[in-house]
């Protein structure tokens, strides 16, 4: 850990000004990821701007959907009545992550910004293109059982760690941000940049831009959704593979579908190819299996993670089966 200055601000404009004016400043929300990484000297901000007093803790249900403040905790979001009823995949994803104690602290905005748990990223003794651009990727020839099979390159094969973001990718969520030059909105699928593409650029957020809210559209069939997470132990563990899925079924045919993958890709992975395969099909194992094959087309295995593509295919079939049988 390195020494840093700390300031706590209660005005979004002031917070944006403070961070955008200092390249070595970082926002602090729940601290469940940033503080860990500071202790490991993986992240060394000279200034930490605590935004917890900002008025971004509300969940608003509107005609156009649900708007979630950036400082809403994982716990509050997961147990919110509208979220449980209208977006069960999101509630399930949140509750499958971390522990009750961490969920009580972790925030929606922080979750969007959380960093990979790649062991070579978290240990400063190793080369890592995310931590030190151009230094190389130690995971390529290292212990890569937990690493990605989609969206990789020789630059980075780390897995994006979030459960919540996988559900958000399936739900067409939009991220609202506020920067020194005003506000803008970014669809969550365009918010994260695949690590394999550019390991130094994790998101399309600019330095100093503050996430203020995440908005979910009022899409009716999202009530028919499910999150399946497969991992080495049943609690407090990251996904080996996970599937966020939703289906709209009318007159015995699939009329709309959402499939997103976690634990296998370098960003929250929206599997649009799988969704296309499902359209117009009769719900059932053969359609789900075809979608699963489409989702993993182009998957590339490394020394220890060849099992992931098959595990993900089976998880997709199972998740869609659960959704297909929902009332």
């Amino acid at each position, binding site marked *: *850990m*390195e*020494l840093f200055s700390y300031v706590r601000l209660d005005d979004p404009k002031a917070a944006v000004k403070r961070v955008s004016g200092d390249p070595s400043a970082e926002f602090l929300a729940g601290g469940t990821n940033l503080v860990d990484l500071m202790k490991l*000297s993986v992240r060394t901000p000279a200034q930490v701007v605590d935004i917890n007093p900002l008025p971004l803790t509300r969940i608003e249900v509107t005609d156009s959907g649900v708007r979630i403040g950036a400082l809403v905790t994982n716990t509050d979001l997961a147990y919110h009545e509208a979220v449980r009823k209208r977006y069960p995949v999101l509630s399930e994803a949140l509750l499958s992550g971390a522990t009750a104690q961490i969920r009580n602290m972790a925030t929606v905005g922080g979750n969007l910004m959380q960093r990979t748990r790649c062991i070579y990223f978290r240990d400063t*003794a190793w080369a890592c293109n995310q931590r030190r651009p151009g230094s190389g990727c130690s995971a390529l020839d290292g212990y890569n059982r937990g690493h990605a099979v989609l969206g990789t390159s020789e630059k980075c094969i780390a897995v994006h760690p979030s459960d919540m973001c996988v559900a958000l990718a399936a739900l067409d969520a939009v991220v609202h941000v506020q920067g020194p030059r005003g506000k803008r909105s970014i669809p969550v699928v365009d918010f994260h940049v695949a690590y394999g593409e550019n390991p130094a650029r994790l998101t399309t957020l600019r330095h100093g831009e503050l996430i203020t809210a995440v908005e979910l559209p009022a899409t009716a069939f999202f009530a028919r959704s499910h999150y399946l997470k497969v991992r080495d132990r049943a609690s407090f563990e990251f996904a080996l593979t996970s599937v966020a899925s939703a289906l709209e079924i009318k007159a015995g045919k699939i009329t709309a579908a959402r499939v997103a993958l976690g634990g296998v890709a370098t960003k929250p992975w929206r599997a649009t190819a799988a969704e296309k395969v499902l359209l117009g099909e009769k719900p059932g194992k053969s359609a789900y299996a075809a979608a699963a094959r489409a989702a993993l087309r182009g998957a590339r295995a490394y020394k220890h993670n060849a099992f992931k593509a098959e595990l993900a295919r089976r998880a997709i079939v199972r998740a869609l089966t659960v959704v297909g049988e929902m009332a």
Partner: protein
Amino acid sequence: MSSKRADPVGKPLSRVDGRLKVTGQARYAAEWQVPGLAHAALVLSTIPRGTVTGIDASAAEISPGVLAVISHRNAPRVSLPQRAKAGVDPAVGDPLQPLQDDKVYYNGQPVAVVVADTFELAVQAAGLVRVRYREQRAVTEFAAAMADAFTPGRHKSSDRDTRKPADYHRGDADKALAEAPVKVRHTYAIPDENHNPMELHATIAAWAARS
């Protein structure tokens, strides 16, 4: 054989220190306040096996609040009987003798200690110590080391428990297996099980005049 006391097996028991621990009130060794306390932070090896060829502590030594940077080059010698492989990887029952030579036996081995006025300043300075190594090939997989496997002899430790023979025999397992009506032949690989205590290692030393 019956007892009036309720059988505790399978029933929850309240831990005497449970409430203190879950409410953050339990006090651990590192949390005692001692006036004028200095703090130490470790510098750990970043290679699994080799030799320390250089330690550049110049930046750490001028870092704010730093009182000392201690490594094998300037550490006081520990006056314990030397063994061939003492250092930081002693045989079971032998004393630990840190910072006594330049050998690295495992990744994360303490190779230096920084002492400063506060914990934070010590940690910051520890990150400024640059260590150079001559690295040797490390064997980190059990299967790869099987060729060199041997049965340990009776240990000459002064500790009673570690003086017992490594192998223990009772009955006749070979005969019983040969005569068994049902046999299952399988190789099981069991992972390491680490003991993870809630309290991290900490030591406080305070010198006081004998009254």
